[in-house]
């Protein structure tokens, strides 16, 4: 586990370096938005990882309740924590992107709101974990909350989407061809892979730490 984590770390570093080089060196200056569009290479991958992380929490929570393996609980815990970091960055970077392009730091737009709700939900998840002393009960309750929260995500998404929207529709994850030139798309994909590796690195490292913490507690 520890060596796997180290390998993932170096791969992530390599990928991030490549992503940065492509984002600032290879990808062209976008015509409408100009230089500031390069925030996209940070914002979109972190948003993807945020959803991925909470998907992992959902699956690991179900596995924990079905099999009661500590490993599944550790994965859920680690993934939620790393997911909160990525979600926070998604919101912050999106806000910084929004100021020059939309003219406002924050607007109660659909996707901004839904990611913010996601962020608060999983902060609550971590808070709950922190407040229960007995590890087994904490794991059980957190798993239930992780499942409910994940089932809630589509509901949150559509409810705020109907409420109001300003965010441009997705460019990549939609039926039909992506609405961007291949260079920009390739840069984006490299960054998505790099940030996913970074997520995996953080999670494996955190899982390892949680395992050792548990061992220390039992010793």
């Amino acid at each position: 586990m520890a060596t796997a984590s180290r390998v993932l770390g170096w791969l992530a570093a390599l990928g991030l370096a490549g992503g940065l080089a492509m984002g600032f060196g290879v990808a062209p200056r976008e015509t409408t938005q100009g230089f500031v569009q390069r925030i996209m290479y940070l914002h979109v991958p972190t948003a993807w990882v945020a959803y991925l992380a909470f998907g992992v929490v959902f699956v690991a929570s179900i596995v924990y309740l079905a099999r009661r393996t500590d490993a599944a609980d550790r994965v859920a815990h680690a993934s939620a924590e790393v997911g909160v970091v990525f979600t926070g960055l998604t919101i912050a970077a999106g806000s910084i992107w929004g100021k020059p392009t939309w003219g406002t730091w924050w607007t109660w737009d659909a996707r901004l709101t839904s990611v913010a709700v996601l962020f608060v939900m999983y902060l609550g998840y971590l808070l709950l974990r922190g407040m229960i002393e007995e590890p087994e009960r904490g794991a059980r309750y957190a798993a239930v909350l992780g499942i409910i929260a994940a089932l809630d995500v589509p509901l949150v998404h559509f409810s705020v989407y109907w409420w109001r929207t300003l965010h441009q529709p997705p460019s990549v994850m939609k039926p039909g061809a992506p609405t961007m030139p291949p260079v920009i798309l390739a840069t984006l994909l490299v960054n998505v892979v790099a940030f996913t590796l970074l997520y995996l690195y953080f999670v494996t490292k955190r899982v390892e730490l949680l395992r050792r913490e548990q061992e220390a507690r039992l010793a």
Partner: protein
Amino acid sequence: MMPDNWGYVAAAYALALVMFGGYWRRLRTRERQLRTPPSRRRGR
């Protein structure tokens, strides 16, 4: 056409560096704490 606004881009990437770096350092500190013998950890 839009001005370059490179300051915003720099701010976003700097923030990413701070957040990921901060989280990484937190993990490292915890790791080191766990490596010290349990007797010394009590006083933490």
